[in-house]
């Protein structure tokens, strides 16, 4: 279940901060007060960024998982060239800071390749590129954690390389990488805030826009923090539910090849 206890623990220091430790600062909560016409309007404006934040994160993580999976298979392939390509891909993309990638894709692609992606497309591409290097490493670790006996059993039965991965190795590896994969998704939701610099109207961008008209940065940013907090808590909860459902569906038990005597003969 959703851990209300933990969210409380997170909210407590925040509310303390907001409740006047600032000394001389006079809070102007009217700016987002639901009791005022203008406040309601501002609130709606801030929340209107939610769609882009979620959409960009979902698109980016989907793309990144697909690319990361392919790259991890290349890294683990018996083919020397594929392996070299995979390693280079991971090394290069892992060393580019996300923000730099965002700027480069958005401002660079139009000049270098004569493409002019929208802020949304460029954002998805940049986030996915950076993240795919990490996804590749996650998949590689998951695949390598599968017992050697599983490979040997599949080989001995005569399964070819593709079938072995498709039916034996990947179904087990995916179950193991679900938790880190969920983490990456949550991380992606947060990183999407970088896209505010290229003008994608997501949560952070909306906050910045409101600040330029209302001159109330502290109130707006505080609300922004709460928005992300609620979003991330919800996402984490969904990810955990998904994990549990998938393990249940696969009849998952402690995965050990030598789970001797797990049940006595009936």
């Amino acid at each position, binding site marked *: 279940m959703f851990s209300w206890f933990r969210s409380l623990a997170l909210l407590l220091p925040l509310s303390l901060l907001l409740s006047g430790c600032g000394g001389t600062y006079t809070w102007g909560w009217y700016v987002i007060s639901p009791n005022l016409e203008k406040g309601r309007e501002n609130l709606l404006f801030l929340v209107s960024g939610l769609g882009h934040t979620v959409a960009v994160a979902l698109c980016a993580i989907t793309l990144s998982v697909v690319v990361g999976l392919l790259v991890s298979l290349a890294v683990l392939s018996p083919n020397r060239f594929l392996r070299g390509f995979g390693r280079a891909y991971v090394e290069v993309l892992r060393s580019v800071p996300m923000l730099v990638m965002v700027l480069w894709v958005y401002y660079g692609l139009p000049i270098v390749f004569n493409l002019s992606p929208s802020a949304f497309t460029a954002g998805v591409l940049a986030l996915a590129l950076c993240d795919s290097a990490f996804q590749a490493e996650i998949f590689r670790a998951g695949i390598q954690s599968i017992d050697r006996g599983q490979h*040997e*059993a599949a080989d001995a039965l*005569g399964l070819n390389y593709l079938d072995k991965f498709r039916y034996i190795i990947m179904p087990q590896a995916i179950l193991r990488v679900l938790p880190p994969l969920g983490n990456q998704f949550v991380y992606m939701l947060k990183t999407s805030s970088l896209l505010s610099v290229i003008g994608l109207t997501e949560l952070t961008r909306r906050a910045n826009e409101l600040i330029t008209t209302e001159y109330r940065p502290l109130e707006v940013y505080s609300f922004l923090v709460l928005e992300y907090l609620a979003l991330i808590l919800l996402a984490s909860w969904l990810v955990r539910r998904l994990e549990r459902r998938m393990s249940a569906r696969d009849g998952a038990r402690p995965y050990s090849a030598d789970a001797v005597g797990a049940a006595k003969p009936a």
Partner: protein
Amino acid sequence: MSTHTYEPHQPMVELRNVNKQFGAFHALKDICFQVERGEKVIVCGPSGSGKSTMIRCINRLEKHDGGQILVEGIELNDEVRSLAAVRQEVGMVFQQFNLFPHMTVLENLMLAPMRVRKTSKQEARDVAMQYLRRVRIAEKADRYPAQLSGGQQQRVAIARALCMKPKTLLFDEPTSALDPEMISEVLDVIAELARDGMTMICVTHEMGFARQVADKMVFMDHGEIVEVAPTAEFFAAPSTERAKLFLSQILSH
């Protein structure tokens, strides 16, 4: 190219001067031996003598560095097609069972026949159930491996190998990971297969079982085949000192 020879007495499995090295460690030294159709061969010897390595070379889970290995006249080398051909004819049962934990017992048995032999789902299921009954575990068909005892898992693993209808079965210490009370249920199943005429090469320390089942004993030590003898002869009067010493140690209790 793999060589197909059609001699009248072509051995099922033949090793000619097989060598294998792990770094500086010489695991197999000039191994030569033959297994005839329907023959049951038990390989014994102290730990680290190369028994498992040898048997794993026969379906190329390990690559040999020198010499030749022929299975039904097909030479094992880097060629993918000859390897695929050999692996369809040679089944293997592992010490650690190596069942697929994410699949039910039935799925474990049906996968390879459907993917490799391209049999229909219905036929794969029928064959699987037939072999599950044969190893006396049909009632567990829909369970997952982790829900079974070690002995049951190993019997499922034997049935899984049989579903590919191999001509030869390799057993790599099939009872070494089992609790003592489960050893006999597995050995009984293997002995039954032996009576039905399956060609078998089995690495084991179970000398009582060896006496009962084997046509021929192979004794290995330090990566060499020290002695090959008919079973009765081997147990009554081993011709080498090393085999005598080994037998006295293993049979003394």
